[in-house]
């Protein structure tokens, strides 16, 4: 208690709160300490000031809690289904925040200045709004601020001179960089908590027992959890006993089955990609607008059907642990989605960019269609995956039982949807608005489907590790892929001549070059010019930075190795000490 006197008020409060004592004792300690402080220094003035600051902090905390979106629904889902299902909804909410931020800065910095300056879009006279535009995104929408083509390349003269080119370029660049930083930070902190500091053996009995979910309030759910826990404990006991019993021929058989299914799944992924490419190459005609929906339809159909096919492989393959099974499923789904996206981007960058005059708007429309059709298929998938499975499982084939909510598959669908939005930001700045609507509706749809159709998951545990993997997947390969597509477009491809903010330039990056040339005439901003010419454009700088980072990484790696050795030594010391002093 004596050491508490020396701390500042805020630290003291935190220290008292951290004591694991009953309320009476904590009150007593606090009273004793406040009494002592009376004699030390200016009691009244200090106490009032810090107390009002503290009260302000508390009210901010309470306000933040009330404003949080969907708090009540999250608590309900967590109480009935546990933390692994809840992690899907938390992930959805987190992605929604990205899109809200993107929409706000795009709308604020790019669209609003243009609307203020020139409120009426220049639509040719024979085009009017028909209902079909909501699905295809072409037609009337093509000439509005929805797509890249609707933005001008002039410097808007109003209250201030607003350079649209620089605004467009820097808004998108800054958003991507901030996204990347946010993803890296959350991935690193999640990795540290859930992989480095945690035990990767999650089917250990102790972990299962200690992770009993105290927030489950439903009687039936508790009974089910107890059953599941018992089954898991028995399995972990028998697994330990059985681990050495596989003979050589059985191992070879397992290896053959694994190899076969991996080849099959990779072949499926490549096949899907190739078929999309041929479909695109054969069918790109704008004569009938409804035809343009064919490719997104086929893409979404593949994304819906092939993962279910992959889940079937589980019947034949036997993985040594559930974790490996989930990892294999996730890797296969990622391969499928990456191959489809790679083929689409390749087609857009190489063929569409050469053929059409206002090609960025074309790509923007294609992405819009993909997003909309993906949304429709997500709704269909919810219907087939959950509602029909429930009907089949309860009425037609009672052996199957009520379905579980497949967290991995649903999270991968979310990641795919978000990647489409990230690729699309450059070509269609208002695409995040559609994405916000989509995620909003998806949240309520999934919640209703979950509560009506699904049962809580049978195997508990691994929620935190799966979350780390999902954030890591979101960053690499999906975000990095989207960033490289946008960077490639800005660097290598020539912007179209007739439309958009970058018309007439060789590539988009030359906007910065032009701006720097303008700045050279203003003597006050010579430092910006110096930074650009000597830091950003010089190769030696990047080389030196890379070298320094590699050296630092090597030093940290050696420190980690040393710490691992230290941990082993300390453990041995504890055992030795307890043997000597029983």
């Amino acid at each position: 208690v004596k050491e508490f006197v020396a701390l500042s008020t805020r630290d003291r409060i935190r220290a008292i709160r951290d004591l694991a004592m009953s309320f009476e004792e904590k009150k007593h300690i606090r009273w004793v300490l406040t009494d002592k402080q009376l004699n030390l220094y200016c009691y009244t003035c200090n106490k009032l000031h810090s107390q009002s600051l503290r009260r302000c902090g508390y009210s901010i905390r309470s306000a933040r809690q009330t404003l949080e979106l969907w708090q009540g629904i999250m608590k309900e889902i967590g109480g009935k289904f546990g933390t692994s299902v809840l992690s899907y909804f938390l992930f959805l909410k987190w992605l929604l925040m990205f899109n809200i931020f993107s929409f706000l800065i795009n709308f604020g910095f790019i669209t609003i200045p243009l609307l203020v300056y020139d409120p009426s879009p220049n639509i040719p006279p024979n085009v009017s709004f028909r209902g079909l535009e909501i699905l295809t995104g072409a037609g009337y929408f093509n000439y509005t601020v929805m797509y890249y083509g609707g933005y001008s390349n002039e410097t808007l003269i109003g209250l201030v001179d607003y350079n649209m080119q620089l605004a467009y370029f820097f808004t998108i660049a800054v958003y991507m960089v901030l996204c990347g930083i946010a993803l890296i930070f959350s991935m690193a902190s999640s990795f540290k908590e859930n992989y480095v500091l945690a035990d990767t053996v999650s089917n250990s009995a102790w972990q299962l027992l200690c992770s009993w979910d105290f927030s489950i309030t439903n009687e039936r759910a508790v009974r089910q959890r107890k059953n599941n826990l018992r089954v898991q404990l028995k399995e972990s006991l028998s697994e330990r006993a059985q681990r050495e019993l596989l003979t050589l021929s059985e191992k070879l058989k397992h290896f053959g089955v694994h190899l076969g299914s991996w080849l099959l799944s990779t072949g499926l992924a490549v096949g899907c990609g190739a078929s999309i490419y041929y479909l695109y190459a054969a069918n790109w005609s704008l004569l009938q607008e409804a035809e343009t929906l064919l490719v997104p339809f086929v893409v979404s159909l593949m994304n819906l059907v092939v993962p279910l096919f992959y889940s079937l492989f589980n019947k034949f393959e036997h993985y040594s642990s559930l974790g490996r099974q989930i990892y294999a499923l996730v890797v296969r789904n990622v391969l499928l989605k990456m191959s489809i996206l790679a083929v689409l981007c390749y087609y857009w960058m190489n063929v569409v960019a050469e053929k059409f005059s206002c090609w960025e708007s074309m790509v923007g429309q294609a992405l819009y269609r993909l997003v909309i059709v993906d949304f429709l298929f997500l709704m269909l998938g919810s219907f087939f995956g959950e509602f029909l499975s429930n009907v089949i499982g309860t009425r037609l084939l009672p052996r199957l039982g009520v379905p579980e909510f497949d967290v991995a598959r649903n999270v991968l669908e979310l990641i795919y949807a978000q990647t489409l939005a990230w690729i699309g930001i450059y070509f269609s700045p208002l695409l995040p608005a559609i994405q916000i609507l989509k995620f909003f509706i998806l949240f309520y749809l999934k919640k209703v489907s979950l509560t009506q159709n699904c049962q809580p998951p049978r195997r508990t545990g691994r929620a935190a590790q799966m979350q780390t993997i999902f954030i890591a997947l979101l960053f690499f390969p999906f975000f990095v892929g989207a960033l490289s597509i946008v960077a490639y477009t800005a660097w290598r491809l020539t912007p179209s001549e007739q439309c958009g903010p970058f018309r007439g330039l060789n590539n988009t990056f030359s906007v910065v070059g032009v701006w720097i040339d303008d700045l050279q005439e203003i003597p006050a901003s010579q430092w910006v010019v110096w930074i650009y010419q000597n830091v950003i454009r010089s190769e030696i700088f990047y080389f030196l930075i890379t070298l320094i980072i590699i050296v630092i990484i090597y030093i940290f790696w050696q420190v980690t190795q040393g710490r691992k050795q230290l941990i082993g030594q300390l453990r041995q010391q504890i055992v030795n000490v307890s043997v000597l002093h029983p």
Partner: protein
Amino acid sequence: MGTTASQLGKDLLSEYQELTFLTKQEILLAHKRFTELLTKDEKDLPNTRVSMERVLTLPELKSNPFRKRICYVFSTSEQKDGSLTFEDFLDLLSAFSDSATLEIKSHYAFRIFDFDDDGTLDCGDLEKLVNCLTGETDETRLTTEEMRQLINNILEESDIDKDGTVNLSEFQHVISRSPDFVSSFKIVL
């Protein structure tokens, strides 16, 4: 101090905010739910103690397998009968809240799992723990052989000083390596 008056005073509220991990809304909600448990006469008395049976009618605790142990651990009564005052109730919610630290949670988890209150988790405690979580009836229990094997596995994994029991530091060490613990050791009203 009149903690069961129908309104909580501002000073009292700020004192509770300082000494627990709960926010103002959570404290007020806890007060509301606690006063619902009291009879009409008890509402005017200060510092009423509510018996364990009435506390266990709360829906958050009703189906919890550890409900009785939770009441015993957080109760400050001399008879050790598991009855709670409002301040004990706040202590309970604070330890199970979102913002409680890992040390507090693991400390109280240890005390809840320690069925015989002797400060360590020995084989008897572990056996009662497993039975609590797998079921009460004879069909749902593990066999004696399985139980022995399970307890051996647990001790092999967590007993660092090899004395046959798990003490508080070993328990906290295992808990710190389990990333799901913090999110599962939670009760929210």
